[in-house]
């Protein structure tokens, strides 16, 4: 081994053990080769198993660090907002102005007028949003968001059903399964912990049958699974419920498990059999909705219920829809009625965070599991790190606040996909604050949330926008002050695995900051002084803060080893299985729900008395569904999944990655033919919210009636407002489901040849 364990210098070459840490499904090892203060090459983990090998995104990182497009200096807007004309200013000038504006807005309108817009584009335990939030708490807080676009539907369902987000089994336990269903889940592109695709391949090689359900023949469906079942977007709940119908009517359910560990099976059964609504949820019923042949639904239901143990892994994509939480709930319930929970080879579909050390507040650590009593007084009393603005705020609508670790009533304010209405309408429109300033950290917000065109209007209406960024993103273009932040190659930090897998990565500083960029910590130290923050945690040296932040993680036995090696792999004796205790010893270990059991029927939801949030999972249509009146004008369903070469909008502008996969719209030949579209033609994808213009990829790999535009391409409008960048969120909704799901896969669109093509055709 050449200089791996300890950074060595040989022939002027130094190897720094660091990693890759963006908002994707991985946190991976990188070893940076440094010569004359510059990264010249990267390697990854080739040490002990499990190796944390970086994907193409991490391997291309050198082009991101040294990109000509990196922000170099603090910038101040000089043109009209959004015109994109800026002047270079000094850090002192910039920070003085930002501090002055914060104080002025605070004085005139109160702290709630400051809207924090956080993102995962630039992160670590200390840097990114963490430093800024710690600082802003100490000046009286800010208005903030609730809801995460990736998983809010899955999280809500997980909390409602199990009372926790700690569900599923460790990846290596897939080898103990006898049957695996990958539902709307594409780890080949989205990673989902560095070893996931490899474990699935190994399972298949062992002869374990894997079935993928997806409207797209994804790389996962094609390569990792044996069989692919295409399904109409947004109808997954119907198919899951029809599977429940077969399982119940053919008596394939695990009655003993249901009686011992669950509540509400009878109410689910009534719905499935159609006792009250006269509509039995048969596979024939589901076939009409899902386009999946009834016989295929029947077979899958029988296989899942009879080949034991079986792992139904419900991905988050189908939950990124209107009523997405119903899909997740329906999947969770199937796991329960087949008794596949808490056992090796089974899988409790839910939020999917099997390894639990990072979430001590819920079921981990020494705290006993079991129903949580609501302690009103405790909730009212702020802790040091809490945001003062949260206290006294009205509870979030439809919050599962009685469950600990869930979305409680005092830490949530505006749904993250509802920011634009909140900005435009304010208190008069029923929102909790009149927003004057956006404080944006590490997010290409405009690009990555629903309804870009409304977003531009909302952001333009603000008094002041400051953004902390690495690149001049479409969001940064709208700011008044743009501050250049360094990358994780230019500072020290610790990366925590995305879903809590048993390892940590130390992001050792590999090079000095590029140009005049600074770390978030450096920026916040400076800004804190100007804001008069006293007794500041951020005043401590970087290493000391990192030691403090990692100290509660009891599974890190040696901070020094973590820092030296660049990673710390926690030794796990046997694959982690969520709810093993609850199943083996239910008396001592009830589920952390109000009933102490798996809630097929959730009483806490029933209290809301909201027909659009039923206490048992139900299939519901909505006004942008395939069968809605709107579908007459916009007959195609838009999917906006993650692709293999970006992490959301991060890494969009990296030439090596752009070369891998061109940005285009996937459409089936049937839909293309009807519109006279050929592969490679420039097409417009549009609806009432906007219009994007990108090439068509005519492919059999997508279900007829669906269009796929991978999210993350940067918004780039022409003079008429047509987005030539192909940003999917020009077309998506800025609303949310009752359970909080982001309906980013629930948009109806139409496509046509771009007028530029038509003109050529006419000639």
């Amino acid at each position, binding site marked *: 081994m050449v200089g791996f364990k300890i950074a060595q210098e040989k022939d002027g070459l130094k190897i720094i053990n660091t990693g890759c840490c963006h908002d994707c499904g991985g946190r991976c090892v990188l070893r940076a080769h440094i010569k004359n203060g510059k990264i010249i*090459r990267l390697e*990854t983990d*080739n040490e002990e198993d499990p190796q944390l090998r970086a994907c193409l995104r991490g*391997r291309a990182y050198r082009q991101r660090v040294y990109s000509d497009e990196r922000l170099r200096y603090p910038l101040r807007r000089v043109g009209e907002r959004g015109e994109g004309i800026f002047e270079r200013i000094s850090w002192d000038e910039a920070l003085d102005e930002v501090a002055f504006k914060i104080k002025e807005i605070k004085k005139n309108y109160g702290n709630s007028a400051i809207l924090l817009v956080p993102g995962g584009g630039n992160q670590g335990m200390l840097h990114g949003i963490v430093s800024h939030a710690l600082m802003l708490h100490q000046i009286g807080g800010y208005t903030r968001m609730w809801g995460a676009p990736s998983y809010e539907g899955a999280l809500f369902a997980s909390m409602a059903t199990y009372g926790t987000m700690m569900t599923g089994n460790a990846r290596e336990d897939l080898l103990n399964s006898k049957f695996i269903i990958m539902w709307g889940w594409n780890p*080949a592109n989205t990673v989902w912990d560095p070893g996931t695709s490899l474990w699935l391949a190994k399972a298949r090689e062992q002869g374990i049958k894997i079935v993928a359900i997806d409207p797209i023949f994804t790389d996962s469906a094609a390569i990792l699974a044996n069989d692919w079942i295409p399904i109409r977007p947004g109808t997954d709940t119907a198919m899951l419920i029809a599977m429940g119908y077969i399982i119940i009517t053919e008596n394939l359910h695990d009655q003993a498990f249901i009686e011992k560990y669950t509540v509400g099976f009878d109410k689910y059964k009534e719905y499935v059999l159609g006792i009250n609504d006269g509509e039995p949820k048969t596979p024939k019923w589901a076939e009409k909705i899902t386009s999946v042949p009834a016989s295929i639904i029947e077979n899958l239901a029988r296989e899942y219920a009879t080949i034991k143990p079986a792992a139904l892994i419900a991905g988050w994509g189908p939950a990124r829809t209107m009523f997405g939480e119903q899909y997740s709930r329906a999947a969770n319930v199937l796991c329960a009625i087949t008794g596949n929970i808490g056992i090796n080879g089974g899988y409790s579909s839910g939020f999917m965070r099997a390894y639990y050390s990072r979430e001590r507040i819920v079921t981990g650590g020494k705290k006993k599991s079991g129903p949580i009593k609501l302690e009103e007084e405790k909730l009212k009393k702020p802790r040091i790190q809490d945001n003062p603005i949260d206290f006294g705020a009205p509870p979030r609508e439809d919050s599962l606040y009685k469950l600990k670790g869930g979305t409680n009533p005092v830490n949530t304010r505006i749904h993250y996909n509802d920011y634009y209405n909140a900005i435009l309408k304010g208190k008069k429109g029923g929102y909790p604050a009149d927003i004057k300033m956006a404080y944006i950290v590490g997010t290409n917000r405009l690009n990555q949330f629903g309804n870009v065109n409304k977003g531009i209007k909302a952001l333009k209406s603000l008094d002041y926008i400051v953004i902390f960024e690495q690149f001049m993103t479409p969001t940064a273009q709208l700011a008044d002050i743009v501050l250049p932040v360094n990358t994780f190659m230019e500072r020290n930090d610790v990366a925590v695995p995305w879903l809590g897998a048993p390892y940590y990565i130390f992001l050792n500083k590999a090079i000095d900051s590029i140009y005049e960029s600074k770390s978030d910590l450096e920026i916040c130290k400076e800004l804190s002084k100007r804001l008069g923050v006293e007794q500041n945690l951020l005043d401590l040296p970087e290493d000391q803060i990192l030691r403090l932040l990692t100290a509660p993680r009891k599974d890190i036995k040696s901070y020094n080893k973590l820092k030296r090696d660049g990673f710390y792999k926690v030794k796990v004796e046997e694959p982690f299985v969520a709810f093993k205790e609850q199943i083996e010893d239910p008396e001592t270990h009830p589920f952390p729900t109000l009933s102490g059991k798996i809630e097929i029927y959730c009483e806490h939801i029933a209290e809301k008395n909201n027909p659009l949030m039923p206490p048992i999972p139900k299939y519901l249509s909505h006004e942008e569904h395939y069968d809605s009146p709107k579908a007459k004008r916009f007959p195609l369903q838009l999917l906006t999944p993650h692709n293999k070469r970006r992490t959301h909008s991060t890494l969009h502008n990296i*030439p*090596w990655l752009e070369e891998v996969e061109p940005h285009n719209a996937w459409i089936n030949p049937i839909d293309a033919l009807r519109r006279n579209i050929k592969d490679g033609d420039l097409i417009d994808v549009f609806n009432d919210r906007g219009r994007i213009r990108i090439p068509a990829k005519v492919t059999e*790999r997508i279900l007829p009636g669906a269009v796929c535009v991978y999210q993350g391409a940067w918004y780039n409008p022409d003079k008429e407002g047509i987005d030539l960048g192909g940003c999917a969120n020009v077309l998506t909704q800025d609303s949310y489901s009752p359970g909080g799901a982001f309906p980013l896969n629930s948009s109806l669109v139409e496509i046509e040849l771009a007028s530029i093509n038509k003109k050529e055709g006419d000639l």
Partner: protein
Amino acid sequence: MNQMGFYFDQTRCTGCYTCVVACKDWNDNPVGVNWRLIKTVENGTFPNLFLAYLSTSCHHCADPPCVKACPTGAIIKRKSDGIVVVNSEKCLGKKDCGSKCLKVCPWDIPQFRDEENSKMEKCNFCVERLEKGQQTICVEACPMFALDVAPLKELQEKYGNICEAEGFDYLEKYKPSIIFKPKLRK
């Protein structure tokens, strides 16, 4: 000669391009110059589809046509390990030579930068890494452990002797030094 060779498990390749990007980073290659390539094989009509990826680089053929075609002897097949390397000082350049190596390579392996009369370049089997006892950068990059390099004989003992895969035609006259676990159609 102890001919070095590649092994590629096509059943595992998800087409993630990590090998391609790692190779570009290690060798500092720009867009358009790919020492490692991914080929996508798509077949069928909805919903009965087949998809496979093929990740290959120069096959360091036992009898490489490029070596014979090169007018200046710039392409050399090493005697010790059969690795085919390029002496760019001898290479005449794309324009002056008319890229004879590219014309004879059935797999379009020779690469040229987008520059006037650029010299031929291609996979050199990471010879400097092999000398240090490391594997090629692509092998160490693959998140699916679908690639391997070793003397071809060792690979054949370990993985068998299948020399065709989806998207790859074996040519007996050149004897490319690669074996596969091919992805099979149903």
